Protein backbone atom coordinates (compact mmCIF):
# COMPACT_ATOMS: atom_id res chain seq x y z
CA UNK A 1 0.00 0.00 0.00
CA UNK A 2 2.86 2.33 0.84
CA UNK A 3 4.25 1.85 -2.66
CA UNK A 4 0.87 2.67 -4.16
CA UNK A 5 0.69 5.87 -2.20
CA UNK A 6 4.24 6.74 -3.11
CA UNK A 7 3.58 6.10 -6.77
CA UNK A 8 0.39 8.13 -6.62
CA UNK A 9 2.24 10.99 -4.99
CA UNK A 10 4.59 11.19 -7.97
CA UNK A 11 1.57 11.88 -10.16
CA UNK A 12 0.31 14.81 -8.12
CA UNK A 13 1.06 18.28 -9.50
CA UNK A 14 3.61 20.10 -7.40
CA UNK A 15 3.03 23.63 -6.33
CA UNK A 16 6.12 25.63 -7.12
CA UNK A 17 5.28 28.31 -4.63
CA UNK A 18 3.29 28.60 -1.45
CA UNK A 19 3.77 25.00 -0.46
CA UNK A 20 1.05 23.75 1.85
CA UNK A 21 2.08 22.16 5.10
CA UNK A 22 0.14 19.26 6.50
CA UNK A 23 0.74 18.41 10.13
CA UNK A 24 0.30 14.76 10.99
CA UNK A 25 -0.09 14.34 14.73
CA UNK A 26 0.57 10.63 14.73
CA UNK A 27 0.71 7.70 12.41
CA UNK A 28 0.46 3.98 12.93
CA UNK A 29 2.92 1.59 11.50
CA UNK A 30 0.92 -0.46 9.02
CA UNK A 31 2.33 -3.64 10.51
CA UNK A 32 0.97 -2.83 13.98
CA UNK A 33 -2.06 -4.96 14.58
CA UNK A 34 -5.58 -3.64 14.65
CA UNK A 35 -7.31 -4.34 17.96
CA UNK A 36 -10.66 -4.50 16.20
CA UNK A 37 -9.34 -7.06 13.73
CA UNK A 38 -7.84 -9.18 16.45
CA UNK A 39 -11.14 -9.11 18.34
CA UNK A 40 -12.86 -10.17 15.11
CA UNK A 41 -10.45 -13.08 15.00
CA UNK A 42 -11.42 -14.01 18.54
CA UNK A 43 -15.09 -13.83 17.61
CA UNK A 44 -14.44 -16.11 14.66
CA UNK A 45 -12.77 -18.57 17.03
CA UNK A 46 -15.97 -18.65 19.09
CA UNK A 47 -18.20 -19.03 16.01
CA UNK A 48 -16.19 -21.85 14.48
CA UNK A 49 -15.27 -23.88 17.53
CA UNK A 50 -16.56 -27.00 15.78
CA UNK A 51 -13.07 -27.32 14.26
CA UNK A 52 -11.57 -27.53 17.75
CA UNK A 53 -14.32 -27.94 20.36
CA UNK A 54 -12.07 -28.16 23.43
CA UNK A 55 -9.29 -25.85 22.35
CA UNK A 56 -8.07 -22.56 23.76
CA UNK A 57 -6.96 -19.52 21.78
CA UNK A 58 -3.85 -17.50 22.42
CA UNK A 59 -1.75 -15.29 20.19
CA UNK A 60 2.00 -15.57 19.73
CA UNK A 61 4.79 -13.20 18.78
CA UNK A 62 7.52 -14.75 16.62
CA UNK A 63 10.82 -13.41 15.27
CA UNK A 64 10.76 -12.13 11.71
CA UNK A 65 14.47 -11.24 11.58
CA UNK A 66 17.40 -13.37 12.75
CA UNK A 67 18.54 -10.47 14.92
CA UNK A 68 15.26 -9.96 16.77
CA UNK A 69 15.64 -10.21 20.54
CA UNK A 70 12.49 -12.01 21.68
CA UNK A 71 13.20 -11.67 25.40
CA UNK A 72 11.29 -9.26 27.61
CA UNK A 73 8.77 -8.08 25.03
CA UNK A 74 5.97 -5.92 26.38
CA UNK A 75 2.63 -5.38 24.70
CA UNK A 76 -0.18 -2.88 25.03
CA UNK A 77 -3.45 -1.91 23.46
CA UNK A 78 -3.15 1.74 22.49
CA UNK A 79 -6.05 3.98 21.55
CA UNK A 80 -6.46 7.75 21.55
CA UNK A 81 -7.11 7.83 25.28
CA UNK A 82 -6.58 4.28 26.51
CA UNK A 83 -3.44 2.25 27.04
CA UNK A 84 -3.99 -1.29 28.31
CA UNK A 85 -0.99 -3.48 29.15
CA UNK A 86 -1.20 -7.07 27.91
CA UNK A 87 0.87 -9.69 29.77
CA UNK A 88 3.21 -11.71 27.53
CA UNK A 89 4.58 -15.02 28.84
CA UNK A 90 8.14 -16.29 28.50
CA UNK A 91 7.30 -18.03 25.21
CA UNK A 92 5.73 -14.82 23.87
CA UNK A 93 2.16 -16.08 24.05
CA UNK A 94 -0.59 -13.74 25.17
CA UNK A 95 -4.36 -13.58 25.58
CA UNK A 96 -5.98 -10.40 24.33
CA UNK A 97 -8.48 -8.86 26.78
CA UNK A 98 -11.72 -7.27 25.66
CA UNK A 99 -11.89 -3.53 26.26
CA UNK A 100 -14.91 -1.55 25.08
CA UNK A 101 -13.17 1.83 24.98
CA UNK A 102 -10.25 0.44 22.99
CA UNK A 103 -12.69 -1.03 20.49
CA UNK A 104 -14.50 2.28 20.17
CA UNK A 105 -11.22 4.11 19.61
CA UNK A 106 -10.06 1.62 16.97
CA UNK A 107 -6.95 0.95 19.03
CA UNK A 108 -3.77 -0.71 17.86
CA UNK A 109 -1.94 -3.58 19.52
CA UNK A 110 1.66 -2.48 19.92
CA UNK A 111 4.71 -4.46 20.94
CA UNK A 112 7.99 -3.10 22.28
CA UNK A 113 9.86 -4.04 19.13
CA UNK A 114 10.11 -2.63 15.64
CA UNK A 115 7.07 -4.06 13.93
CA UNK A 116 9.00 -5.38 10.93
CA UNK A 117 11.12 -7.43 13.29
CA UNK A 118 8.30 -9.76 14.34
CA UNK A 119 5.37 -11.70 13.00
CA UNK A 120 2.24 -12.83 14.77
CA UNK A 121 0.11 -15.96 14.78
CA UNK A 122 -2.98 -17.34 16.48
CA UNK A 123 -2.26 -20.43 18.53
CA UNK A 124 -5.16 -22.83 19.04
CA UNK A 125 -4.47 -25.97 21.03
CA UNK A 126 -6.68 -28.85 22.04
CA UNK A 127 -5.67 -30.41 25.35
CA UNK A 128 -4.15 -33.85 25.73
CA UNK A 129 -2.23 -34.17 22.46
CA UNK A 130 0.96 -36.27 22.41
CA UNK A 131 4.22 -34.31 22.57
CA UNK A 132 5.54 -33.24 19.18
CA UNK A 133 2.11 -33.19 17.55
CA UNK A 134 -0.59 -30.74 16.53
CA UNK A 135 -4.22 -31.41 15.57
CA UNK A 136 -5.37 -30.58 12.05
CA UNK A 137 -8.68 -29.04 13.18
CA UNK A 138 -6.74 -26.71 15.49
CA UNK A 139 -4.60 -25.63 12.54
CA UNK A 140 -7.67 -25.13 10.33
CA UNK A 141 -9.11 -22.79 12.92
CA UNK A 142 -5.73 -21.08 13.46
CA UNK A 143 -5.67 -20.18 9.79
CA UNK A 144 -9.17 -18.71 9.86
CA UNK A 145 -8.57 -16.77 13.06
CA UNK A 146 -5.12 -15.63 11.97
CA UNK A 147 -6.37 -14.30 8.64
CA UNK A 148 -9.45 -12.71 10.22
CA UNK A 149 -7.21 -11.01 12.79
CA UNK A 150 -4.79 -9.72 10.13
CA UNK A 151 -1.74 -11.30 11.73
CA UNK A 152 0.44 -12.42 8.83
CA UNK A 153 3.20 -9.95 7.98
CA UNK A 154 4.40 -10.86 4.51
CA UNK A 155 5.54 -7.60 3.10
CA UNK A 156 6.11 -7.57 -0.64
CA UNK A 157 3.87 -4.89 -2.17
CA UNK A 158 3.83 -6.81 -5.45
CA UNK A 159 2.71 -10.01 -3.77
CA UNK A 160 0.23 -7.96 -1.77
CA UNK A 161 -1.45 -6.53 -4.85
CA UNK A 162 -1.71 -9.89 -6.50
CA UNK A 163 -2.95 -11.76 -3.49
CA UNK A 164 -5.41 -9.24 -2.08
CA UNK A 165 -8.30 -10.74 -4.00
CA UNK A 166 -7.53 -14.17 -2.58
CA UNK A 167 -6.39 -12.96 0.80
CA UNK A 168 -9.58 -13.67 2.71
CA UNK A 169 -9.74 -16.38 5.39
CA UNK A 170 -11.86 -18.46 3.01
CA UNK A 171 -9.52 -17.86 0.08
CA UNK A 172 -6.43 -18.82 2.05
CA UNK A 173 -7.72 -21.54 4.37
CA UNK A 174 -9.79 -23.58 1.92
CA UNK A 175 -7.56 -23.51 -1.15
CA UNK A 176 -4.55 -25.69 -2.04
CA UNK A 177 -2.91 -22.44 -3.14
CA UNK A 178 -3.68 -20.64 0.12
CA UNK A 179 -0.17 -21.28 1.46
CA UNK A 180 -0.84 -20.36 5.08
CA UNK A 181 2.46 -20.87 6.89
CA UNK A 182 2.68 -22.63 10.23
CA UNK A 183 5.72 -22.71 12.49
CA UNK A 184 6.79 -25.74 14.52
CA UNK A 185 8.43 -25.43 17.91
CA UNK A 186 11.84 -26.47 16.56
CA UNK A 187 13.51 -27.03 13.17
CA UNK A 188 11.71 -29.87 11.38
CA UNK A 189 12.92 -32.70 9.21
CA UNK A 190 9.56 -34.33 8.44
CA UNK A 191 5.86 -33.76 9.03
CA UNK A 192 3.47 -36.72 8.95
CA UNK A 193 -0.34 -36.81 9.02
CA UNK A 194 -1.97 -39.66 10.94
CA UNK A 195 -5.71 -40.40 10.95
CA UNK A 196 -6.46 -43.91 12.18
CA UNK A 197 -4.73 -46.34 9.83
CA UNK A 198 -4.01 -43.68 7.24
CA UNK A 199 -0.50 -42.24 7.52
CA UNK A 200 1.13 -39.92 5.04
CA UNK A 201 4.30 -37.86 5.19
CA UNK A 202 4.01 -34.43 3.64
CA UNK A 203 6.04 -33.85 0.48
CA UNK A 204 9.22 -31.77 0.63
CA UNK A 205 7.49 -28.85 -1.06
CA UNK A 206 5.18 -28.48 1.96
CA UNK A 207 8.15 -27.81 4.23
CA UNK A 208 10.39 -24.75 4.42
CA UNK A 209 7.89 -22.43 2.66
CA UNK A 210 7.94 -24.68 -0.39
CA UNK A 211 11.72 -24.95 -0.47
CA UNK A 212 11.86 -22.36 -3.23
CA UNK A 213 12.66 -19.23 -1.24
CA UNK A 214 15.72 -17.50 -2.65
CA UNK A 215 17.80 -15.06 -0.60
CA UNK A 216 16.13 -12.26 -2.58
CA UNK A 217 12.63 -13.49 -1.77
CA UNK A 218 13.14 -14.42 1.85
CA UNK A 219 12.95 -10.91 3.34
CA UNK A 220 9.40 -10.63 2.01
CA UNK A 221 8.30 -13.81 3.80
CA UNK A 222 7.44 -13.70 7.47
CA UNK A 223 9.17 -17.07 7.61
CA UNK A 224 12.53 -15.35 7.12
CA UNK A 225 13.93 -16.19 10.53
CA UNK A 226 11.96 -19.40 10.96
CA UNK A 227 12.41 -21.09 7.61
CA UNK A 228 13.56 -24.37 9.15
CA UNK A 229 10.40 -24.49 11.30
CA UNK A 230 7.98 -23.65 8.49
CA UNK A 231 5.37 -26.02 7.04
CA UNK A 232 2.06 -26.10 5.20
CA UNK A 233 -0.67 -28.64 5.91
CA UNK A 234 -3.57 -29.61 3.61
CA UNK A 235 -6.17 -27.49 5.40
CA UNK A 236 -8.38 -27.73 2.32
CA UNK A 237 -8.40 -31.52 2.06
CA UNK A 238 -11.60 -32.76 3.71
CA UNK A 239 -10.44 -36.36 3.41
CA UNK A 240 -8.26 -35.62 6.45
CA UNK A 241 -10.58 -35.20 9.45
CA UNK A 242 -10.13 -32.47 12.06
CA UNK A 243 -8.84 -35.08 14.53
CA UNK A 244 -5.90 -35.89 12.24
CA UNK A 245 -2.63 -35.72 14.15
CA UNK A 246 0.21 -33.72 12.62
CA UNK A 247 3.43 -35.34 13.82
CA UNK A 248 6.85 -33.71 13.70
CA UNK A 249 10.26 -35.26 13.31
CA UNK A 250 12.78 -32.64 14.26
CA UNK A 251 16.20 -32.01 12.76
CA UNK A 252 17.79 -32.60 16.13
CA UNK A 253 16.26 -35.16 18.47
CA UNK A 254 15.55 -34.07 22.01
CA UNK A 255 18.16 -35.22 24.57
CA UNK A 256 17.30 -38.64 25.94
CA UNK A 257 14.68 -39.16 23.27
CA UNK A 258 12.15 -37.06 25.15
CA UNK A 259 10.10 -34.85 22.90
CA UNK A 260 10.12 -31.23 24.04
Amino acid sequence: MGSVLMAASFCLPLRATGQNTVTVKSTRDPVDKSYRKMIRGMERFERERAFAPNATLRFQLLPRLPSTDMRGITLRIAGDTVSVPVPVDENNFFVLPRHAQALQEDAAVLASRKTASMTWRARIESPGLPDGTRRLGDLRLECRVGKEAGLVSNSSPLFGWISDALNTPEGVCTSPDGNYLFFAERPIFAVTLRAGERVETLPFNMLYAGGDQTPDMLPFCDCQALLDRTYYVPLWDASWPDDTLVEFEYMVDAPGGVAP
Partner: protein
Amino acid sequence: MKLGLLLCAALLAGCATQPAPPGSIVAAERLSTVVVAGRTTKAELLAAFGPTKSVRFDSGYEAWVYQSPAGGGQFSEFVVLIDPSGVVGKTRTRAPSTQ
Protein backbone atom coordinates in the same frame (compact mmCIF):
# COMPACT_ATOMS: atom_id res chain seq x y z
CA MET B 1 0.21 3.71 -16.65
CA LYS B 2 3.92 2.91 -16.68
CA LEU B 3 3.53 1.32 -13.30
CA GLY B 4 0.74 -0.86 -14.63
CA LEU B 5 2.83 -1.93 -17.61
CA LEU B 6 5.72 -2.76 -15.30
CA LEU B 7 3.41 -4.84 -13.13
CA CYS B 8 2.06 -6.70 -16.16
CA ALA B 9 5.61 -7.33 -17.38
CA ALA B 10 6.60 -8.64 -13.97
CA LEU B 11 3.56 -10.92 -13.91
CA LEU B 12 4.25 -12.26 -17.38
CA ALA B 13 7.89 -12.81 -16.53
CA GLY B 14 6.81 -14.74 -13.45
CA CYS B 15 4.50 -16.92 -15.54
CA ALA B 16 7.29 -17.66 -17.98
CA THR B 17 9.70 -18.80 -15.28
CA GLN B 18 10.09 -22.55 -15.00
CA PRO B 19 9.45 -23.94 -11.54
CA ALA B 20 12.49 -25.15 -9.64
CA PRO B 21 13.29 -28.78 -10.36
CA PRO B 22 11.90 -31.03 -7.63
CA GLY B 23 15.21 -32.80 -7.22
CA SER B 24 17.59 -34.98 -9.19
CA ILE B 25 16.31 -38.40 -10.21
CA VAL B 26 18.34 -41.21 -8.65
CA ALA B 27 17.46 -44.88 -8.26
CA ALA B 28 16.42 -45.77 -4.73
CA GLU B 29 18.96 -48.59 -4.61
CA ARG B 30 21.84 -46.21 -5.34
CA LEU B 31 20.68 -43.79 -2.67
CA SER B 32 20.41 -46.48 -0.02
CA THR B 33 23.83 -47.83 -0.96
CA VAL B 34 25.71 -44.54 -1.08
CA VAL B 35 24.05 -42.42 1.61
CA VAL B 36 24.81 -43.42 5.19
CA ALA B 37 23.75 -41.18 8.06
CA GLY B 38 26.66 -40.15 10.25
CA ARG B 39 29.24 -40.93 7.58
CA THR B 40 28.49 -39.65 4.07
CA THR B 41 29.63 -36.10 3.39
CA LYS B 42 28.14 -33.36 1.27
CA ALA B 43 31.11 -33.59 -1.08
CA GLU B 44 30.45 -37.31 -1.55
CA LEU B 45 26.79 -36.65 -2.32
CA LEU B 46 27.77 -34.09 -4.93
CA ALA B 47 30.32 -36.44 -6.46
CA ALA B 48 27.86 -39.32 -6.61
CA PHE B 49 24.67 -37.60 -7.74
CA GLY B 50 25.48 -34.01 -8.68
CA PRO B 51 23.54 -31.01 -7.40
CA THR B 52 19.88 -31.37 -6.50
CA LYS B 53 17.13 -29.26 -5.03
CA SER B 54 18.19 -28.08 -1.58
CA VAL B 55 17.48 -25.56 1.13
CA ARG B 56 20.20 -24.03 3.28
CA PHE B 57 19.26 -22.66 6.68
CA ASP B 58 20.86 -19.96 8.84
CA SER B 59 21.75 -22.68 11.36
CA GLY B 60 24.14 -24.25 8.83
CA TYR B 61 21.91 -27.28 8.27
CA GLU B 62 20.86 -28.15 4.72
CA ALA B 63 18.02 -30.31 3.39
CA TRP B 64 18.53 -31.99 0.01
CA VAL B 65 15.86 -33.90 -1.88
CA TYR B 66 16.10 -36.58 -4.59
CA GLN B 67 13.38 -38.34 -6.57
CA SER B 68 13.43 -42.09 -7.20
CA PRO B 69 11.26 -43.77 -9.83
CA ALA B 70 8.64 -45.88 -8.02
CA GLY B 71 6.73 -47.34 -10.97
CA GLY B 72 3.58 -46.15 -12.68
CA GLY B 73 5.14 -42.78 -13.40
CA GLN B 74 5.35 -42.03 -9.69
CA PHE B 75 8.37 -41.06 -7.63
CA SER B 76 9.39 -41.55 -4.03
CA GLU B 77 11.21 -38.73 -2.28
CA PHE B 78 14.53 -39.23 -0.55
CA VAL B 79 15.42 -36.39 1.80
CA VAL B 80 18.85 -35.89 3.31
CA LEU B 81 19.64 -33.64 6.25
CA ILE B 82 23.22 -32.37 6.22
CA ASP B 83 24.54 -31.02 9.49
CA PRO B 84 26.67 -27.86 9.79
CA SER B 85 29.87 -29.93 9.63
CA GLY B 86 28.89 -31.18 6.17
CA VAL B 87 27.98 -34.74 7.16
CA VAL B 88 24.64 -36.44 6.52
CA GLY B 89 22.78 -36.45 9.83
CA LYS B 90 19.49 -38.05 8.83
CA THR B 91 17.71 -39.48 5.82
CA ARG B 92 14.11 -40.38 5.12
CA THR B 93 12.08 -41.78 2.26
CA ARG B 94 8.57 -40.66 1.39
CA ALA B 95 6.50 -43.10 -0.61
CA PRO B 96 4.44 -41.74 -3.50
CA SER B 97 1.15 -40.22 -2.39
CA THR B 98 -1.74 -42.65 -2.13
CA GLN B 99 -4.13 -40.12 -3.67
